[in-house]
């Protein structure tokens, strides 16, 4: 670490000096946080999760209003899953206490990464904020959130609420901050700052590539382009239900949503009928052409329509659809790079390709992944383990939802994968993260390894706790007059106490 504050001179983009100062503050906070014991850490995490849960609906609505993307009700579900849900999921895990392996004569001491720079997207703004913040706090990291500019306002409000809750619950001052005026040059400057210990980047390819270029360790994720194979053995009704629900979920804004259904010829008609029964509308060739033009002008996804509902897509394409249509399904003949319908979908449009058999289906799925979405996710509907395994073996993706919806399945909401808003695309997808992001990815372990020679006795570490349970070792600065937000610390403390009381009485 350089001893010199804000070493970058006049070429620094506007806002950078202040933002670097946030990182410096975060470094102080992370130093204090790294000494917390389990109890103190848990109190912070629980308080923050609770506030995130209580605000799930409010910020879901605000995010849809601000970004114009997605469905508030579905965002609420994600926000909730990424609050209490995340805490419950990892309740049994321990990222604080040293582990003693007497047989191996190794003591492992968990250490936080330090300062996490969390880039959050416009598509799932609050669930990703909640998710990354909780993961960081569980592992005693300080976190600086850099929100997508399109979701800035809501993200700032959310982080302020979480930050106040954290500090009120005893977290070190400054352990959770947000860049309030993010711009691309500013984010790039921060990503390269030596005060950052790890970048967790969710967003477009450009920002993820920039994170990896920054010279700082990064956990970045790539885009998806999800093939969904439906073979002849599948429960067609269930497959259709999963596909329709998944595509309608938050208007397909999760990157785990299905792009193209690859359907064995024998069940294709049946699947189409089942899809139509569940609010999907299968379009004809002319309308498919109109959709190509409107949703993929110049052969690229029209991001203005990202997260919009089916009615909006139909209107933009100038096609008529039955009332209540949730999903548009556009059949096309062949998965090739020049086919717009084979590109990533961030809206409730599903491509549909018929294949003569499962083997050809696997080929089509591979073709889709050559176009985009390497390392990300796939879906299969099948009751034949041989096909399922062949699919999993052949595809360069790192998670496949089996007989489950892609959106919520690969994100761990409807499968037993780690529930995550950050889907590692691995080396296939030019990422260092191969799994769904979990708290352990933000922890590192110092290993005290004894001489393996039996003559060297292993020490007795039982009952030793390296961390501090002292209630107030962290200096708490009184907030500056200008810092007084909508909710004061006292109000918040009261709020949290009220909520805890409710929980107890329930």
């Amino acid at each position: 670490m350089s001893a010199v504050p804000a070493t970058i001179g006049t070429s620094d983009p506007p806002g950078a000096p202040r933002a670097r100062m946030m990182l410096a503050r975060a470094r102080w906070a992370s130093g204090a946080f790294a000494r917390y014991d389990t109890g103190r850490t848990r109190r912070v995490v629980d308080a923050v999760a609770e506030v995130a849960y209580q605000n799930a609906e409010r910020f879901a609505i605000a995010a849809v209003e601000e970004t114009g993307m997605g469905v508030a009700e579905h965002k609420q579900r994600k926000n909730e899953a990424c609050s209490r849900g995340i805490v419950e999921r990892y309740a049994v895990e321990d990222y604080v206490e040293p582990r003693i392996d007497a047989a191996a004569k190794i003591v492992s001491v968990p250490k936080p990464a330090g300062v996490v720079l969390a880039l959050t997207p416009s598509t799932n703004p609050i669930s990703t904020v909640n998710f990354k913040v909780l993961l960081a706090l569980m592992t005693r990291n300080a976190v600086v959130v850099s929100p997508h500019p399109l979701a800035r306002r809501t993200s700032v409000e959310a982080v302020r609420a979480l930050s106040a809750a954290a500090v009120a619950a005893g977290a070190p001052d400054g352990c959770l901050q947000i860049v309030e005026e993010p711009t691309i040059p500013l984010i790039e400057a921060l990503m390269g700052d030596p005060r950052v210990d790890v970048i967790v980047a969710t967003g477009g390819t450009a920002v993820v590539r920039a994170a990896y270029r920054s010279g700082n360790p990064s956990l970045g994720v790539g885009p998806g382009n999800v093939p969904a194979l439906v073979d002849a053995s599948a429960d067609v009704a269930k497959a259709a239900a999963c596909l329709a629900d998944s595509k309608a979920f938050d208007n397909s804004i999760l990157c785990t949503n299905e792009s193209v259904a690859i359907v064995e010829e024998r069940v294709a008609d049946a699947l189409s009928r089942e899809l139509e029964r569940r609010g999907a509308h299968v379009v004809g060739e002319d309308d498919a052409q109109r959709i190509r033009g409107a949703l993929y002008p110049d052969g690229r996804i029209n991001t203005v329509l990202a997260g919009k509902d089916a009615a909006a897509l139909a209107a933009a394409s100038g096609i008529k659809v039955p009332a209540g249509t949730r999903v548009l399904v556009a059949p096309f003949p062949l998965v090739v790079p020049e086919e717009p319908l084979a590109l990533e979908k961030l809206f409730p449009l599903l491509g549909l390709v018929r294949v003569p058999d499962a083997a050809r289906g696997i080929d089509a799925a591979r073709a889709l992944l050559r176009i985009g979405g390497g390392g990300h996710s796939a879906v299969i509907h099948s009751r034949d383990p041989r096909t399922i395994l062949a699919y999993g073996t052949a595809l360069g993706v790192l998670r496949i939802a089996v007989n489950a919806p892609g959106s919520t399945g690969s994100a761990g909401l409807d499968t037993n994968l780690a529930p995550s808003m950050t889907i590692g695309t691995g080396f296939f997808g030019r990422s260092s993260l191969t799994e769904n992001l979990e708290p352990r990815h933000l922890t590192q372990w110092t290993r005290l390894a004894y001489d393996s020679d039996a003559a060297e006795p292993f020490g007795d570490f039982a009952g030793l706790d390296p961390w501090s349970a002292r209630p107030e070792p962290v200096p708490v600065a009184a907030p500056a007059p200008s810092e007084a937000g909508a909710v004061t610390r006292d109000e918040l403390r009261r709020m949290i106490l009220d909520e805890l009381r409710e929980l107890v009485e329930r």
Partner: protein
Amino acid sequence: MYDYGLFSFDSKADFLRRSEQFWNPDKTRFWQDAGVDLVIDRRDGYLFWDMAGRRLIDLHLNGGTYNLGHRNPELIAVLEQAMGRFDIGNHHFPALARTALAEALVATCSPNMRRVVYGSGGGEATDIAIKTARHTRQRRKIVSIRKGYHGHTGLAVATGDDRFSTLFLSDRPDEFVQVPFNDLAAMEDALRGGDVAGVVIETIPATYGFPLPEPGYLQAVKRLCERHGALYIADEVQTGLMRTGEMWGIAKAGIEPDIMIVGKGITGGMYPIACTVVSEECSAWLKEDGFGHISTGGGAELGCIVALKVLEICGRPEVRSMVHYIADRFRGGLRAIQELYPEWLVGIRQDGVVMGLEFDHPQGAKLVMRRLYENGVWAIFSTLDPRVLQFKPGILLEPDLVEEILDRTAVAIGQALADAPREAALR
């Protein structure tokens, strides 16, 4: 050969010789004799390098001038930008940057503060304060603290230690009364006559080694001032700008001064100015004869622009948070060192990052200063109490450098303890 463009020196020895010859023989000599052969060359953040290349961490900061670090990049940027349009301005006319800074500065002070008068340095700002108090109260007497320090200009020097006033026949004991610090009875005696215009007092006397005011002392002085018709002049040169964890040390004490003196750190060592902030009552002369105090370089507009940035930086919540972390880390670290040498490091005076380390030896701080210097840290003894080392870390320090400072300090304090008996034997 040391080539600095417009000037050059053959060697450090050549430079020091010429420094004695053309600049200040005694001062040049003094540091060589004190074992501190420092000639500051390159500077960056809280570090600077001796011309021979040695790296030092700055814990002197010229009394808080480099509170935000040497050559702070934000200040450089704002000064460079300002030079595209401004210079020091004209001292007779309403001036854009002076007014803007005055408004911003007043906004950070207690609500009774109204206007700003500008000087070019802290001494002049003190002179302005004294002149203002005299005009306001139509009394001539000024009370100050013995071993207090407010600069070396005509009036300010008379408030300070004899050493600097008698040298120039500038002591005026009839008009300038000095009382011991933390002595309320003496203060009351000095004020009782009802002929004192103002009491000028550093919130924590710096050059005296930062003895902390006893709880209630400053507040009682303020009450005595009110009772006896004297004005309270707060010298915030070393305790302002977040150094105590609040923007102004005097505000932390809950006192609304009548006049406040601001200097040094207000321009971060980039373009010096100083400020005297005054209440409505003390603004009278500014309405009666605004040309009453004239200073060509006072409130130079370039300096005002830098100062605006300094105030903005100091007001950030991040800075407030960091000062508390830094102070807390030093508190813990210095306590641990004290546990090693409890009979040597006998006192730790601390308010935020304003610190004085008290050693059990009449010249203890000089011994520690020399050892610190050898160990790569520059901190200065207190001129008016050489037992006490002024220990003044910056408010933007980061954890790694603070740890390094504490490591070096622990070693140096131990070494200086070993020096102490030898020093005593020599005396």
